[in-house]
């Protein structure tokens, strides 16, 4: 469970490389469905290792730990999704993220006008209803990096994000359970005749 190497730096640079041509890649590539990708044991182990590295590198207050968990999650996502890139590049700036573009300009306003225009004209009936559009907008604010996406892309990003979050919760819970079991067994060695603490290192 203990990582012998630190792959965080290497992954960050590969993520940066992906981001440059990211749009084209995600369009052309058929990814495996997010549910199966995030539920594979391999992903959980990879994430678990990264999580431990990230926790180790930071102070132990709750916010830093959450920060560690989110960074590790975005790294494990591999920068293939917008939300993971937004999380990674949002680290270097504080809250208000400036979306990285080739020209360096913020094109948010321009695109939003375009999106609204599209929304009122050529949408399928499901999307024309105001309620649905409102909910889509809320969703786009909750999923990182997705404020300007079209509905299909937003839904795809959301599916991946939800699956990733579930894995994050599962892994963090397992880590917390392991740590509290270690804590308890240390405190109360009488009830730990089989050396339960040792199992945690396997």
């Amino acid at each position, binding site marked *: 469970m203990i990582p012998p190497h630190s792959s965080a730096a290497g992954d960050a640079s590969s993520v940066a490389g992906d981001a440059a041509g990211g749009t084209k890649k995600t369009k052309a590539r058929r990814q495996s469905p997010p549910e199966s990708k995030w539920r594979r044991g391999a992903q959980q182990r990879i994430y678990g290792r990264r999580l431990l590295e990230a926790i180790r590198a930071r102070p132990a207050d709750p916010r830093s730990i959450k920060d560690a968990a989110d960074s590790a999650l975005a790294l494990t996502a591999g920068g293939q999704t917008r939300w993971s890139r937004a999380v990674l590049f949002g680290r270097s700036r504080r809250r208000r993220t400036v979306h990285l573009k080739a020209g360096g300009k913020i094109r948010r306003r321009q695109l939003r006008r375009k999106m609204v225009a599209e929304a009122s004209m050529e949408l*399928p009936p499901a999307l024309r209803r105001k309620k649905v559009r409102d909910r*889509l907008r809320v969703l786009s604010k909750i999923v990182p990096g997705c404020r300007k996406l079209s509905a299909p892309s937003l839904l795809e990003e959301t599916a991946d994000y939800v699956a990733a979050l579930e894995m994050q919760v599962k892994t963090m819970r397992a880590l917390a359970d392991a740590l509290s079991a270690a804590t308890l067994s240390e405190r109360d060695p009488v009830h730990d005749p089989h050396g339960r603490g040792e199992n945690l290192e396997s």
Partner: protein
Amino acid sequence: MSGRRSRPRQSASYSRITDDQINDLLPKLQALLPEARHQSNDRASAAKVLQETCSYIRSLHREVDDLSERLSELLAATDTNSPQAAVIRSLLM
């Protein structure tokens, strides 16, 4: 990322988001929601799926916050007691 000015970000289908695309993606999203796994919920309305997705993501965020708190407490507790610290640190290092 360049060339966004001259052409739509996606292919020509951007201006024609099809019914099929949405109808394809919404059930997929719905399948990820916890309720869908218990009931056989056949095609809830788009609005409902989106709303439940939003609340589900929010609840997942809250769980991450709670787990971060819990982990923080556990890690703080280990510093006071060296036998515990040995075990915990062996996990972290």
